[in-house]
């Protein structure tokens, strides 16, 4: 019996109204946490962390690059998890989460690639090399584009979500295969023209701001995702009475 009770939160998530109410309570906390963490991490990382003994100040882009790369990969896994939940338990909210998270993931991948290119110029002497990690990141961006394009091409909302879910699951199974094959390809074809600089064990003053930035990025993603999902829930449930009440309340509050 107690086992059943523990799952009630999961079943409640099926109700858009319940999600809208509970996410409304979480959102301010998450947004404040994200803003604080990002502010502290940025100021600490860009101004107070000691410069790298080899790369000088150019290494400071790490405080944007690494959190974005972390998120880019986690969001794709999240897409697949949401896809499985949507396919197995037919939960509409998982569909909403999948489709709203995909563009954020694509942006994070793009940010990781762009900051990586900017960082590559002073460190490796070139904006782009066909390094295994860079290439698999580029492929990840294409995988995101595929999910987004498929979601937009199918006009029926529920079919689009299910199709995206299948694609995300297939993609997540493929990601390790792609990653290993790309690493293998790189070691076969490219002798170490540029060796990626071996990361020395970072001192605490360097990795603590990085940790704060990573946490900040995750909070930021959670807040943005909740906002996007709330908007989509309102859009989907536009005809129900609770949404009409909610909108009326918002409009009258503004006046």
């Amino acid at each position, binding site marked *: 019996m107690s086992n059943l009770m523990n799952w009630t939160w999961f079943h409640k998530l099926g109700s858009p109204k319940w999600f809208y109410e509970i996410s409304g309570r979480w959102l301010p906390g998450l947004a404040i946490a994200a803003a604080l963490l990002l502010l502290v991490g940025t100021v600490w990382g860009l101004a107070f962390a000691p410069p790298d003994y080899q790369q000088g100040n150019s290494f400071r882009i790490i405080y944007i690059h690494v959190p974005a790369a972390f998120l880019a990969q986690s969001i794709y896994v999240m897409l697949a998890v949401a896809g499985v939940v949507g396919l197995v338990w037919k939960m509409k909210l998982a569909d909403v989460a999948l489709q709203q998270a995909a563009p954020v993931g694509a942006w994070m991948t793009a940010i990781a690639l762009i900051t990586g290119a900017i960082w590559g110029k002073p460190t490796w002497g070139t904006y782009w090399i066909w390094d295994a990690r860079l290439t698999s990141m580029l492929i990840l961006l294409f995988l995101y584009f595929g999910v987004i394009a498929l979601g937009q091409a199918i006009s029926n909302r529920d*079919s689009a979500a299910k*199709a995206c879910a299948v694609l995300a699951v297939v993609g997540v199974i493929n990601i390790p295969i*792609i990653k290993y094959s790309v690493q293998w390809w790189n070691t076969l074809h490219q002798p170490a023209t540029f060796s990626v600089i071996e990361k020395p064990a970072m001192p605490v003053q360097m990795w603590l701001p990085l940790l704060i930035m990573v946490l900040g990025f995750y909070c930021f993603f959670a807040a943005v995702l909740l906002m996007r999902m709330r908007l989509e829930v309102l859009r989907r449930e536009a005809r129900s009475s609770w949404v009409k009440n909610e909108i009326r309340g918002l409009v009258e509050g503004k006046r």
Partner: protein
Amino acid sequence: MNSLFMLLVVREARLLCRRPAELANPLVFFAIVIALFPLAVGPQTQLLQSLSPGLVWVAALLAVLLSLDGLFRSDFEDGSLEQWLLSSHPLPVLVLAKVMAHWLFSGLALVLLSPLLALMLGLPGRCLPVLLASLLLGTPILSLLGAIGAALTVGLKRGGLLLALLILPLYIPVLILGSGALQASLQGLPVAGHLLWLASLAALTITLTPFAIAAGLKISVSE
């Protein structure tokens, strides 16, 4: 079950043989793409030979992708797919039969044509067994992975380009392993590792992708 599988393969084969032009199109495309590369990069024999493993594989991959666009379309339009979904037989087995029949005609023909085009690019004759083996193992993977995309996009009016966008990133491991095997044999290195990896990927796709294709068809048909 087995007889049903064979019946489906024979039915598909008969249908494909009645439209020979559709069978020939991917082959002609394959040949034209191969012919484009010498025109683009220049006719130097040495350069073409060193590029040939990649060229043959990229062209084969694109030809397979092109042939998959219409894989489920006619079945979707004439209602056969709905009958498949309603039938008591497991859908993954039915789609596996369908993809296998398709591969037997388009994929296998591609494999048989490839030595000729590879020789024209200057690939030495001793590399041909590796070329055939890598394509024989690789093209079924391409067909099965592509069928997932074809199943997801079958209901869309302009699914062709979208299919390429969805599926090409998933083709990358096959491309790396296949052209890697050929490259290794060109340089006189052992190729067993690449081929074994390709074989294991083939086993993985044959066992898993029918379920994803079936799920994709269910979504597309129920729309």
